[in-house]
């Protein structure tokens, strides 16, 4: 089953990628959608089985590299963390696939687009189901590649190509850190397999590296290197500049990759490596500071942008900051919880924005929108749901997850926890504000678009709206439903850590049924195979449903989050902020909601009731506005400091090093030399037989003389 969940997108990609021409656009769309939907359904089953059944397992597929002490296999690690991610990825991806059928209907390369989407889905699944760091890195680079391809999908646009390159190059910085981190792990632990690493962590806390004569704590170094990778991929402050530019890609791509899934890979990485981070408090502090600062800075930028997609992009960055500081205070469950809810409402917002853009004839500037809410009421309603969820208004998903994140930060009772809490509150206020700024500028007020565009404003086709409904359902309900299992409830006792009795009972359940389809399908004709497979699947469905019923009963009894996460997350007892988060003062709990409502109210005041206010405020705080509007001058700074110098250096290397030395003496030089030698040798081949004989004699005598000479030396010596 896990094979089906992970590899059907790959299969779809291959079919659409290789046979795209012959099966046509329709065929590609069908194959890829079917593949991903199938993956989504199976991963939901897996979620119930593993998440509530506690059947975490790892399945080895094939050996990969065996070289000395370095053994790596292709293996799927299906544990709670993985299935949560798989569900998110596959469901959002399925929605985006279906949505793209409508959104890209005017595009020429539909097949290619769908194939790339499936490739991305597969790579992301590889990333989250990896059983070792190398496979994770494979997925990590795979999503990077797919992201590059999709950002630059409209390759006739110069800006799209530039953005794709920027994303790739900036990510390279992070990947460099990740690769170094993996190597460092191999040095310290002698393995890159998760199980082996996690088993040894407790023994390795005292290990140090010697670096320029200083002893540095090995685990801290490793964690910081890994976090560097996460910073790149999850667009945290410093390496975030690629994310807003990535909005050059088609909107479904932005929804899938740059909001819901790929950018959360960094969060996933830290959560996955939680057993290491737990022993590296310094690294956790750095993570918190990065996350909190990002959340704040991104929100300030989001206040001032006019491009609808960029606003949402900065909002994504800001929300990722939330997740990171949650990780930093050891509230891994809370971070994952926010990741899941965020995936739903942010994908919803992006796809809704896509729907708006679609309606406005590809216009993205909010200053040229407005007054269209009556024409596209459906989209309008969905955007409201998304925005409410984002702003953290109960009972939508964002309320639950954002609150627990902030509470956990406060409950950490450290200076950086407090910093994160207040930064988070500020960001929450701004989030609510810019969300309604977006809503109001886009849908309300006087129409600012030209007459022609306004006439063409139309509701999107059902194929685009249906996925939005699924996501909206997620945005509405995900918070309430998953609050209990993901972060537990105040009622559950804090004593049960990890090895609860119920869990061990479930762990004994055989996992064998996962392999059933393969066993039975062996040596059968395709038709019967499919029948057997579908029979198996339906059998499994019923089985899974029964399990779900059992689970429900248990949930009703108050399932502990420790039972849900099992061993996939590790939290030291003294760091258990999620537990503490349930026992914070009331004002801590209510402050986010209050500032959220305040932000909404202010936005109404400023943009709908007295439209002159924003301009006046902007003038009043001119320096601040300039700073925010220009995104804190990160791009300019990098351009001046790094990009320009790097270009000069690159040119120098290219003209002097590459062309002047390597090409001249390398390929070109050796090629001409080889040609010359060949000419010389063929001139030697005169065709005259006595010359040949002569050569043979000379060589024979030369060899004789050599031995003669040697024996002479020997006799003398």
């Amino acid at each position: 089953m896990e094979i089906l969940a992970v590899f059907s997108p790959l299969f779809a990609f291959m079919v659409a990628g290789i046979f795209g021409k012959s099966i046509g656009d329709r065929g590609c769309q069908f194959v890829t959608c079917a593949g991903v939907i199938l993956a989504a359904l199976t991963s939901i089953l897996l979620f119930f089985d593993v998440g509530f059944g506690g059947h975490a397992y790892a399945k080895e597929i094939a050996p990969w590299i065996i070289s000395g002490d370095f053994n790596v296999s292709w293996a799927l690690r299906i544990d709670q963390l993985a299935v949560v991610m798989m569900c998110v990825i596959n469901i959002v991806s399925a929605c985006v696939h279906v949505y793209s059928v409508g959104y890209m209907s005017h595009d020429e390369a539909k097949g290619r687009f769908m194939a790339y989407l499936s490739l991305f889905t597969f790579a992301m699944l590889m990333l989250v189901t990896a059983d070792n760091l190398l496979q994770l890195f494979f997925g990590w680079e795979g999503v990077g590649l797919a992201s590059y391809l999709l950002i630059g999908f409209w390759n006739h646009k110069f800006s799209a190509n530039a953005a794709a390159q920027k994303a790739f190059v900036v990510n390279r910085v992070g990947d460099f850190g990740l690769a170094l981190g993996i190597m460092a792990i191999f040095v310290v632990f002698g393995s890159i397999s998760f199980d082996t690493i996690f088993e040894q962590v407790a023994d390795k806390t005292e290990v140090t590296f010697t670096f320029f004569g200083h002893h540095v704590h090995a685990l801290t170094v490793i964690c910081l290197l890994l976090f560097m990778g996460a910073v790149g991929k999850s667009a945290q402050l410093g390496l975030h500049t690629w994310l807003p530019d990535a909005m050059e890609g088609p909107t479904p791509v932005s929804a899938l990759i740059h909001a819901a899934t790929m950018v959360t890979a960094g969060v996933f990485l830290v959560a996955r490596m939680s057993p290491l981070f737990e022993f590296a408090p310094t690294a956790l502090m750095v993570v918190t500071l990065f996350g909190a600062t990002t959340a704040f800075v991104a929100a300030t930028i989001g206040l001032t942008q006019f491009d609808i997609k960029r606003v949402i992009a900065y909002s994504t960055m800001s929300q990722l900051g939330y997740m990171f500081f949650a990780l930093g205070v050891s509230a891994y469950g809370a971070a994952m919880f926010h990741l899941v809810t965020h995936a739903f409402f942010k994908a919803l917002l992006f796809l809704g924005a896509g729907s708006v853009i679609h309606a406005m004839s590809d216009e993205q500037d909010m200053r040229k929108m407005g007054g269209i809410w009556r024409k596209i009421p459906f989209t309008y309603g969905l955007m409201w749901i998304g925005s409410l969820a984002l702003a953290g208004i109960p009972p939508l998903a964002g309320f639950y997850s954002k609150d627990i994140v902030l509470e956990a930060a406060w409950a950490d009772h450290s200076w950086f926890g407090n910093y994160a809490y207040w930064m988070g509150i500020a960001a929450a206020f701004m989030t609510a504000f810019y969300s309604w700024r977006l809503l109001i500028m886009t849908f309300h007020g006087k129409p600012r678009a030209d007459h022609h565009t306004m006439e063409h404003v139309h509701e999107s086709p059902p194929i685009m709206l249906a996925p939005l409904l699924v996501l909206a359902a997620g945005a509405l309900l995900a918070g309430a439903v998953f609050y209990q299992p993901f972060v537990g409830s105040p009622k559950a006792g804090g004593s049960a850590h990890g090895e609860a009795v119920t869990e061990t009972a479930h762990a004994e359940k055989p996992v064998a049924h996962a392999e059933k389809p393969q066993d039975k399908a062996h040596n059968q004709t395709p038709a019967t195979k499919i029948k057997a497979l579908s029979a198996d699947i339906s059998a499994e469905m019923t089985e899974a449903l029964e399990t779900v019923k059992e689970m429900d009963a248990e949930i009703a009894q108050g399932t502990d989050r420790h039972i849900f996460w099992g061993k996939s997350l590790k939290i030291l007892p003294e760091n258990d902020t999620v537990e503490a988060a349930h026992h914070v003062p009331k004002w801590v709990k209510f402050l986010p909601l209050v500032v959220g409502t305040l932000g909404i109210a202010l936005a109404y005041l400023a943009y709908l009731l007295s439209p002159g206010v924003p301009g006046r405020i902007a003038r009043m705080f001119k320096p601040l506005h300039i700073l925010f509007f220009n995104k804190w001058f990160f791009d300019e700074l990098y351009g001046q400091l790094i990009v320009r110098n790097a270009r000069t250096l690159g040119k120098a290397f290219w003209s002097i090093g590459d062309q002047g030395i390597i090409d001249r003496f390398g390929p070109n030089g050796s090629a001409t030399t080889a040609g010359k030698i060949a000419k010389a040798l063929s001139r030697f081949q005169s065709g005259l037989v006595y010359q040949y004989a002569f050569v043979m004699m000379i060589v024979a005598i030369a060899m004789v003389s050599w031995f003669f000479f040697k024996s002479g030396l020997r006799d003398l010596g």
Partner: protein
Amino acid sequence: MISDFNLVPLLPEIFMALTGMGLLIVGVSQGNRATPVICAAAGAALSIAALVLLSLGWDAQTVMNGMFRFDEFAGFMKLLVLIGLIASLALSSRYLTQEDMARFEYPILIIFAGIGMMMMISANNFLTLYMGLELQSLSLYVLAAFQRYSVRSAEAGIKYFILGALSSGMLLFGISLIYGFSGTLDFTVLGKTIIGLEQIPIGLTIGLVFLLAGIAFKISAAPFHMWTPDVYHGAPTSVTALFAIVPKVAAFALLMRLLFQPFADMQEDWFQIIYFLSVFSMVIGAFAAIAQENLKRLMAYSSIGNMGYALIGIAAGTAQGAGAVVLYLMIYIVMTAGVFAVILHMRRQGLAVAKIDNLAGLSKTEPALAYGMLILMFSMSGIPPAAGFFGKLAIFNAAMNEGLYVLAVLGVVTSVVAAFYYLRIVKVMFFDEPADSFDKNEGSFARRVVLIVSVLFVIGFIIKPSILYECAMHAASALFTVAG
């Protein structure tokens, strides 16, 4: 009178000799009309000889007054020779009629050359060695000049003959020096004599030098390779195929038996010669081929280069190295047979052509042939997963284990250079404007079978490389069990 008189291990050779003479009688009475029949019969005879060979017990034994040695190594190499002979006969059959040289002596000479080669492989005495060598050489001289109305063919025959005589002279001179020192022609006795020596006298070393010079000519190792391009170019293509495929195996078997058995204790000396020959062969094989326009000449240099790689395995001097050589030769003959099947197919308006340019655009005119050639060329240049890669891998591996880093690195470097001309053929076939297509309906069934088998072998080798590798290792280890 002789204690170890036993003809059983010689049965394949005896059978072949008798069949050869019988077929000659048939040929004389029936004339050239009978050529196709005799070709087929010769093929059948070789196959039967192979079966006879397989049915013998392959336990090591020395018979006929110690002159003839039969062991697993000899058996395996003979099998390779017989397969090579059958393949080259299959490649020839149609070509003979096309080129108007369908004379019944052709298959018979091949059979006799085969007997000579098998004698070389089994030689345990300088007399058998020399007789076998001359038997195969003489047959091959005649075959080279077989197209006697063609000036080129006659030239090839004469050149081969004169230089071959010179090399035989060197060989004999070397043997005479060795005999003069030890008083014996028998390998076993010679080996014992050499083991007992405290210091190798220079006379014996010089004898070995001349001996190796003579054999180096036979395997066309540079710088004794000068005849190769001219003879390969001039001889009828089917004969060139034969030259390229089979005699090398026999000469290599001979070389390995000599060096690993009687001269095992002179490794210090022969190592230097083999090293030198190997380096020269690899370099010349790689570089000189670049300038070639003719496929047959190209294959000549290619075979020189390949012999250089195989010599690395001998230089390693271990059972692993010897096994690698056997494996390498096995893969080499299969690939070469396939390539020559393609070359023999190249005919335009009834005339054989062999320029590289003639292959232009083959992928459009005859895609199946082009893809077959593509695979063979990839294999030749040692690109995985084709079989050629594994041969080189085994060789370089053996060299590395013995610390012969210079040879291994040079081998890799020259492989890269050689890849240039192999891939140039691919480029010409796939990316150049199509030339006129080759004559249709000229392909022969047997030739097609050779090509298909060759391509399948090259691709399929990866499925279970260990089988043939184990076989080769096992065969080669037979050389060491007695010597050690």
